[in-house]
């Protein structure tokens, strides 16, 4: 590590032990993370990627494109939006705009995971690698399991967990794509249904403050209205209007809460 990098990282937050400039990651965390992949959230994730494979098949999107998305995008809502929007024949730029708007939510997740995992004195590249694996499920898993991982092992832990989940999800997409061809339609439709069911329940499960609840309800209400009026930008409209209204409501709510002794 160069002294320049060290300077860049010197003024950062985190626990005091993390400010040690000689600190570096303990890569034993990699194996530890790989083991964490085999838990209930990993299984749920596999189900929804089974559904993604089925969805991809159902809208006649090629498997190689879907697998490439698993590896390069690694964010199921964005992948579903991308596949869905492209196969509806909408313009590429609009599809990318929709994808990037769903990916905005990755930023706070990366911030939240890395703030608790990174060593300010250490090399930066593991952080950029770890960030590629951070999405909704991994964020939820880090809330559940990262507390028990020693600080120096945490970024490798995220990478090991992410790599293992990604391998599993590629297999899952593959299986979902091929299994549905030999399946009765209602069963195949159920696999596709795993995706919206997983999303809405994961949103509810991750909701902590009133803004989250309001955003879920408003997004689900405004979405269909926006879809009937402006199908090209329905998700963006629902997201921005619903999210902003939810923030306005909670701004008042949190202020009222703050006034309590």
């Amino acid at each position: 590590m160069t002294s320049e990098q060290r300077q860049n990282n010197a003024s950062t937050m985190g626990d005091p032990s993390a400010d040690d400039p000689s600190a570096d990651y303990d890569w034993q965390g990699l194996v530890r993370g790989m083991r964490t992949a085999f838990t209930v959230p990993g299984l749920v994730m596999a189900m929804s990627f089974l559904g993604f494979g089925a969805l991809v098949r159902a809208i006649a999107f090629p498997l190689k494109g879907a697998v490439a998305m698993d590896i390069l995008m690694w964010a199921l809502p964005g992948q579903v939006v991308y596949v869905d929007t492209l196969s509806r024949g909408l313009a590429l730029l609009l599809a990318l705009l929709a994808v990037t708007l769903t990916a905005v939510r990755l930023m706070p997740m990366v911030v939240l995971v890395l703030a608790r995992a990174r060593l300010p004195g250490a090399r930066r590249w593991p952080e950029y690698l770890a960030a590629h694996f951070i999405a909704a499920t991994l964020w939820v898993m880090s809330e559940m399991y990262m507390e028990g991982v020693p600080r120096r092992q945490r970024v490798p832990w995220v990478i090991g967990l992410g790599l293992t989940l990604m391998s599993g999800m590629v297999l899952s997409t593959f299986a979902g794509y091929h299994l549905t061809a030999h399946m009765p339609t209602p069963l195949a439709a159920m696999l596709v249904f795993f995706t919206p069911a997983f999303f809405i329940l994961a949103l509810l499960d991750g909701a902590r403050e009133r803004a989250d609840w309001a955003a879920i309800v408003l997004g689900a209400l405004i979405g269909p209205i926006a879809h009937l009026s402006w199908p090209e930008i329905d998700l963006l409209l629902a997201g921005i209007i619903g999210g902003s209204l939810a923030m306005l409501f909670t701004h008042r709510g949190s202020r009222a809460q703050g006034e309590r002794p």
Partner: protein
Amino acid sequence: MTLAEGVIQAPSWVLQASMLTTDSPLWNQPALWGAVILAGAAVTYIWRILGVLLAARIDPEGAVLRWVRAVATALVAALVARMVLFPSGLLAQAPLVARIGALIMGMLFWRLAGRRLALSIAVAAACFLLLEYLFP
């Protein structure tokens, strides 16, 4: 009816309006479809880079991040509503009552049975299957 038949019998507009379905000539040109996926990857990863850069500086409880989080949450909720109310492909072949009923059952179970995520998803899927057979 198998899925393959379902795809063949899908409304013709699905295939006609499609830009990137299996029959698109684009998939024979790795450079082109690779570029499409890479573009999707780039617009996704850019927020992760921002996250790495901000992780050291930003206040995760700050107002801007809370707004961003609210927008993203509403957007995914809208995506769920779109998939359930205006489905494409296979899901469109399931009755509306199965799509909405199963989602509501899953959420009710999640609320009443101690917020068990995995079990609630399984319950929603089981209800979906049941409703599909009850209301073909």
